[in-house]
């Protein structure tokens, strides 16, 4: 794997907005002049299945896929999903994850168990984790759908470019479609950044 490529893995379940979040991260990388490749498996994943979205950027990206053990950052939209994909991180990589637990019907049916402490399990693998409750933060801001922006805020201080570049990508999206939501998204972004600092303390 090339040394000057940044690998970010964004994971969650279908319908959570994983693909959109990755797209916004990609737009920020493009704004910085990087070559970008982004890949995921869609199709059946929109029916509540697993979604893992790979983002690679740098001077020139060849394969779009992040090899296991080579991701710099793992952004988890759901706790068990962050655990599932933890093996994709480099030993010095960082996990930023929502603590939300989304239990699928197969677990409710009693066929499988949801892990007791997925975040503890990631830590047990020797990885650094910052966990936060993005949904509660969004709820406090009065709009559940702000969860995605909270997630992006969480990763903003760990990118190889300034957090403002990512914020700008978010603002650009809303300015075009729903300008009345720009201010709320700025607050959600700031709250995501703060949540990660808090999780470190």
């Amino acid at each position, binding site marked *: 794997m090339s040394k000057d490529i940044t690998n970010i893995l964004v994971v969650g379940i279908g319908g959570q907005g994983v693909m959109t979040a990755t797209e916004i991260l990609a737009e920020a990388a493009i704004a910085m002049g990087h070559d970008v490749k982004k890949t995921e498996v869609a199709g*059946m994943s929109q*029916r509540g*299945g697993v979604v893992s979205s790979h983002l690679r950027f740098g001077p020139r990206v060849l394969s779009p896929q992040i090899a296991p053990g080579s991701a710099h950052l793992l952004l988890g939209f759901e706790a068990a999903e962050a655990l599932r994909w933890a093996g994709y991180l480099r030993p010095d990589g960082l996990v930023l994850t929502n603590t939300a637990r989304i239990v699928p019907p197969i677990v409710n049916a009693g066929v499988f168990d949801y892990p007791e402490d997925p975040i503890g399990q990631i830590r047990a693998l020797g990885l650094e984790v910052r966990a936060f409750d993005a949904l509660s933060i969004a709820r406090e801001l009065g709009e559940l759908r702000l969860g995605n922006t909270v997630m992006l805020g969480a990763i903003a201080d760990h990118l190889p470019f300034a957090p403002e570049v990512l914020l700008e990508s978010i603002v650009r999206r809303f300015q075009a479609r729903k300008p009345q939501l720009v201010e709320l998204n700025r607050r959600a972004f700031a709250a995501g950044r703060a949540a990660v600092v808090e999780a470190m303390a």
Partner: protein
Amino acid sequence: MSAVMPAPAASRVLFSGNEAVARAVWECGVKVAAAYPGTPATEMLEVVATYPDIYAEWSVNEKVSLEVALGASMAGSRAFCAMKHVGMNVASDCLMTMTLTGVVGGLVIAVADDVGMSSSQNEQDSRFWGRFAHVPVLEPADSQEAYDMARYAFQLSEEYQVPVILRMTARICHVKGMVTVGERIEHQAAGFTKDAARWVMVPGHAKRRLPLMHQREQALRQLSEQTPFNVLEPGADRRVGFITSGPAYMHVREAFPEAPVLKLGLSYPWPLAKAYELEERVDAVVVVEETEPLLETELKAAGIAAIGKTFLPRMGELAPEVLAPAVERLLRKESAPEPEGAVTQPVFPRPPTLCASCPHMGVYYTLSQLRNLIISGDIGCYTLGAGHPWNSLDSCICMGASMGVALGLDKGRGEADKNKRVVAVIGDSTFMHMGMQGLLDITYNRGNVTILLLDNRAVGMTGGQNNPANGRDIHGMPAPRIDFRKLCEALGVKPERIHEVDPYELPTLFKLLREETKVDDVSVIITNRPCALVQDFKPMQPYFVQEDKCTGCGNCVEIGCPAIHVTRRESAVKPSGKTVDLAFTRIDTAACTGCGLCVQPCAPEAIQHARPGLVSIVRK
């Protein structure tokens, strides 16, 4: 989707492979574009439809879409057709003769292989069609190439009067990368020229076209040596030289930056002289191809000691983490590789589920309550009925197979199945795609099958595309809407054996299914609720579980709704001394859209409407 302003020429855009192809189709002045939705190909036509000045359609199946494209090409217009790999199985009847007539206006067929099978019933290698039909195959390795090659494909098609296959894979269709786009060029239709010897393929005419087809293939073979899409890239590490195409090229370059590589863009016919040149430069020639050992076999036949599938996996993607260790083992002269261990952590599986308020849930819950059924299924969201908690689907083969398989199960039944009833489950789109003929076969041959026609007014699994069942065209504009009752009657089902039912009304559905499966005749039960993801679906007031009333019977869990969650489990001893497992539940009101399916099996009436005024969040 409505028309949008296309990005100006020379701008750099983040495009998926599908979006890149759609842009090229527009730039090339294509007049007619047709497809049936199918992952990973769907977005090509979806995006083409957003460009101005192109006639775009959702066809009822891939064969029809290719015929539409051929007709447009015969009229002298440029035409485009897109399909998933299995779509070509259906369309190939047209392809295999169209290769004899050739084309007039450039005709490009984008075929998308689901390598790794994320959303398909099989994994097949569409490069075979190039050999089978003697037509050229172009294989892009990223979005920019998908754009460049799609543009080139129209030119190639016209120059050699040949349909061109643009072979995509999921890792091209759905990967986004930067693309520099160009100008649109108008293309004028030459007009249809009557020429029976060319367009009427009776044996006498076809025999005269066969030699032309073979000459054309020879000419393309020579082109393959010169085209800039086939490049021999030098490299300092001479231990291994690679021959590769499509996304595998990027994986090879990633894993072996110093190796010589023969990159095939026009991968059929492939350049023999270039392959010899590579062989002379390196110690070993390794072929990296997804998925079949096609080039490998042909290289070996040409006398090149190519190594490929004896040590590389024969299925799935050849990502760098698969490729690098395999080649390392080869260099160390070790035997065939061990299968790779799992790279993910052991966490419960999260299979796709039916959505909250999905009308199929009512159908599968009911089927799971009935005994002595053999349920012949089909391709669509309702294939999920084979999973938990319903376990009520016994087969899924290919588009429309529920019909023929059901008749075969009926006619072929042995003594052991004498009391079993045969049920076929098929969706509206699949029925129109390839199921109608099967139903005619059932009625004509006096089969005894109960058919559940799940009309949810959309192509659900691929994202709710429009079809004749909802009466909207690809742009969302009004179009003639099919009447399934009349259609089934016309296909020979007795009017009294055709029923329309609300799949949210469980007792009615149960009664009807029990009655119709008892009748020795063909019955059709049409369910009439729309897919929960399309605009026809109107969310209703959500429900919640009154904790003090819930007895933990777990009946609601059996519906299989993703909005119902178990909060705690207990064991209880009944007066009879029998131990039962209890599951107390809650409803995620933010996800509930109020279909009321779970309310019906709840004996203690613990499931009530959530407080008035509470509106559910509906995700598109």
